[in-house]
Structure formats: structure tokens, C-alpha cells
């Protein structure tokens, strides 16, 4: 579905440099700290910025050269951009129904009502959560084959986050062939949604792993300084000095569980991955 081949984009001292592939029907997550390059990548994918080098293709077509008809198969929700705040939901409904031949007006209206988005209120009067819901609903209401979601849950309360994640889950259940690319710095969102996860930092991919492997095989070891000295570090990916000793990230949970009985071993999470891979030693 999407092939990113040696994409390079430079802004001053920041350089985004990555390659990746998103298969048909896959839900791919991109995690990373603020400023890692997630939004820059999304913008390049959507043809909003031009790569300095490399290319991005969507179904074999250059991303920045997509025709209107080809763009109709993509649904995008950006973190800091949406429909004009002067419009109302009923305006958005009319606009989308003219923009997309496959726009499901009934589905959109029904979900707007379910999510508490009033038809006659200006978007400028919406809360942050309501705006985010409208952005996601606008992206998923025309049976898109590729969904691109940039931080759809950023800055939202737990209820709004869950509502949006439920909307996405429901959409994915009903559209199994849909590919999704979703960025977030909230790891739990991605753990429950994605088939595979890319960790990017300073514009580069630090790690790409299936979510099952990440949650099943990765672990965090908590060891004292003394134990750390004696530890076989062959399978340690990253570590960080703590008050009690060291916190280490490994992909071989089983190895340490078998060879170091009594060691504190916690299941890995995307948060641990971000913290240790991007801030450890």
C-alpha cells in the first residue's frame, strides 16, 4: 500500500531520514517523542511537503502527484488542522458529501450524534475532544482504503481518547482491508490498535517490531549496580542509570528469566521502549 524509500527532509539542523513499508490491511503505529519527526513524515506522506530526497508511493503512485480521485481513497486526520472553525457540522456534512463520492452521510450523522457533536454549533465553539472526534469521523466516513492519523488522541481526556479509539476499532472491524498509519506519543493507544510499531527518534527509525513481539518478548530488567556489573549484556538493547542501580531493556525476556532467577523482570511496553531507547545509555 505505502512504500517509503529513503525519504529525506531537512529543516535546519533537523533531518528526517527513513524507509518503511505499510502493507495492505496493516495497522502501523509510529511512536516517538515530540519533535521526533512523526508529523513531518505524515506531511510528506500526504504530499503536503516535498521530500528533499527519496520517494513515497501509495499504491504505486508518487504521494505528491496523486490525483483528486486517488486522494479520495485516503482519509486523513491531522493533529493541528481541520475544517475551518467558522463551519458547523451540518456544513461539514454537505461539503464531504460533495467531496467524496463514497461519503456515507448516514454513518457520519449517526456517529456525530453518538459522539455528542451538535449539528448547528460552530466548530470554534467545540472542545478539544469534540474537534478531535470530528477530525476522525471526517476521515473514516468515506470508506477510505488508507487512514492516516496524526496524533488523533493528543491532549484529550481519558473518555475522549477511548471514544476515538473505539471509533477506530469499530471502523477496522468493518473494513478489514483498510491500512492505517497512526502516530502517537501515547503508547497504550498504539499497543491496543497496531499490528506493528516503528519507533522514531531525531528523524531516524530506532526500531521496528510487531506489537505482539514487542509486548511478549521485550522486558525491562531492574538490577542493582552490583548485579549490573555481573549481568550478561549481550541482549541488552538500552539501559538507564537509576537511584537503585540500572533499568535495562531487553528483547530476550526468557534468557534473563531463566539465567537470573530472582531478578526483577517487568513486561515491556511501548513507553519503556521510548524512554530507554531514546533517553538511555
Amino acid at each position, binding site marked *: 500500500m505505502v512504500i517509503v524509500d529513503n525519504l529525506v527532509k531537512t529543516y535546519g539542523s533537523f533531518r528526517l531520514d527513513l524507509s518503511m513499508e505499510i502493507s495492505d490491511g496493516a495497522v502501523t503505529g509510529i511512536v516517538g517523542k515530540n519533535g521526533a519527526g512523526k508529523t513531518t513524515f505524515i*506531511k510528506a506522506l500526504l*504530499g503536503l511537503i516535498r521530500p528533499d530526497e527519496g520517494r513515497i508511493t501509495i499504491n504505486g503512485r508518487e504521494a505528491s502527484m496523486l490525483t483528486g*480521485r486517488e486522494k*479520495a481513497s485516503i482519509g486523513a486526520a*491531522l493533529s493541528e488542522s481541520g475544517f*475551518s472553525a467558522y463551519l458547523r457540522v451540518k456544513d461539514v456534512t454537505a461539503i464531504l458529501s460533495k*467531496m*467524496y463520492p463514497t461519503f456515507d452521510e448516514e454513518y457520519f450523522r449517526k456517529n456525530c450524534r453518538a459522539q455528542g457533536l451538535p449539528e448547528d454549533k460552530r466548530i470554534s465553539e467545540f472542545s478539544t475532544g469534540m474537534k478531535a472526534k470530528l*477530525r476522525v469521523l471526517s476521515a473514516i466516513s468515506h470508506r477510505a482504503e488508507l487512514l492516516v492519523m496524526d496524533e488523533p488522541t493528543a491532549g484529550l481526556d481519558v473518555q475522549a481518547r477511548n471514544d476515538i479509539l473505539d471509533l477506530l476499532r469499530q471502523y477496522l472491524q468493518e473494513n478489514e482491508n483498510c491500512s492505517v498509519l497512526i502516530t502517537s506519543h501515547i503508547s497504550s493507544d498504539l499497543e491496543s490498535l497496531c499490528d506493528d510499531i516503528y519507533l522514531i527518534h531525531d528523524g531516524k527509525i530506532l526500531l521496528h517490531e510487531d506489537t505482539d513481539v514487542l509486548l511478549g518478548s521485550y522486558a525491562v530488567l531492574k538490577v542493582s549496580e552490583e548485579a549490573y556489573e555481573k549481568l550478561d549484556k549481550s541482549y541488552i538493547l538500552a539501559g538507564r542509570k537509576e537511584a537503585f542501580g540500572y533499568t535495562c531493556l531487553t528483547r530476550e525476556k526468557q534468557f534473563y528469566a531463566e539465567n537470573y532467577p530472582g531478578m526483577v523482570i517487568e513486561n515491556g511496553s511501548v513507553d519503556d521502549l521510548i524512554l530507554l531507547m531514546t533517553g538511555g545509555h
Partner: protein
Amino acid sequence: MRGLIEKDLRLTFSRRQTLMIFLVMAVIMGGTMDGSFLVGYLTMLGTIIAVGTISYDEFDNGFAFLMTLPFERKTYVGEKYLFCLFMEAVSWCAGVLIYCIGGLIRHSGVNPVSELPMLLSLIPVLFLSVSVFIPLLLKYGSEKSRVALFLVFGLMALLVFGTKQVMSGQEQVLQGLVETLDALPEALVFLVITAVCGLLSFLSYLCSVRIMEKKEF
């Protein structure tokens, strides 16, 4: 294109109060003023409102999302020119209507048929302002384009002043030119004005497409 027109119409009608104020002002002017100034005034207001939709698109980083919707960048530009022309035509019609009704009420002897070529030529001439506004707004955004617009009009003023200086002492040449133009049939003048303005507007459209194709969001 249909979706973009829908969006711009809805954005325009979201400013109902402003539109109503303009209309009331136009009606008052139509009822109290002689001359066709009202038609030009209303046509210009319609044009400014239409061009203003670009600022609405740009507001709050809206361009980024807008450009993910299913149309090409040149379609966006083309729609803006068409929408401005449409709004200009609608406000021109409203202006002519108020002008005629005002004339009838005041018994001022308004003859819209005889004035039609002059009134019609307002449309291409005022559309030239669209041809200046749109590329500037797309290139510099609504904030910076005000400065750019100031510079453009400053340059135009300098050009007029410079021409006046150069032509001083040669008033007879100018007088002759004016007399020659006056002697031409009004329909021909209208056609020439429309052709020249059309050509300049097309060049402006090409510039705007180029600006938009290069723009990053």
C-alpha cells in the same frame, strides 16, 4: 470542485451579519445617491468577500487539512478564481438592481440599457483586483500579503505619478488619446477591456497555480 464551491458558499454565508450590513448600506446608497457608483461599490465588496475565503482556509493552519481532501492544487486555485467571478457577478447584479430601483423611485431617469456597456466593464476591471489579491494571498498568507498589497499599490501610484511627470507638457497627446477612445463604439471598448483583463487574469491564474504547486503546508 463542487465540494470546494460548497465550502466557500457556506463560509461566505457564515458571515450573514456582515453581508446584511453591506446590503443595507447598498440599499441606503441606492435610495439617496445618483450615479452608478453603487454598482462598482457593491461589486467590489462581493469580490473582497470572495477573496476573503482564502484567509478563512488559511486560518488556524487549515490549509494542511484542506490539501488532504480529494482535489488537486490547481483545482483549488481554479475554484477560487471561479468563485470570485461568481460572487462578483452576483453582487454586480444586486448592485444594478438596487441602482435601477433607486433610480425609478427618485425619478432620476436611469437608463440601464444605455449604461450597460459601462456597467458591464466594471466586472472585468474589478476582477483585476482578484488577479492581484489571489496570488499575493497564496504566496504570503493573509498577514504578510497586506504589506505586499501596500507595496503593489505604492508601485502603481509611483507608476501613475511617473507617467504624469513624463507626459507633462504633452497634454495634447493624452487629450487626443482620450478623444480617440471616446469615439470608439462602447461595445468595442467593453470587448477590448474584457479581453485585456481576461488575459491578465489568466496570467495571474498561472502564477497562482505555480505558487500553490510549490507551497508546503
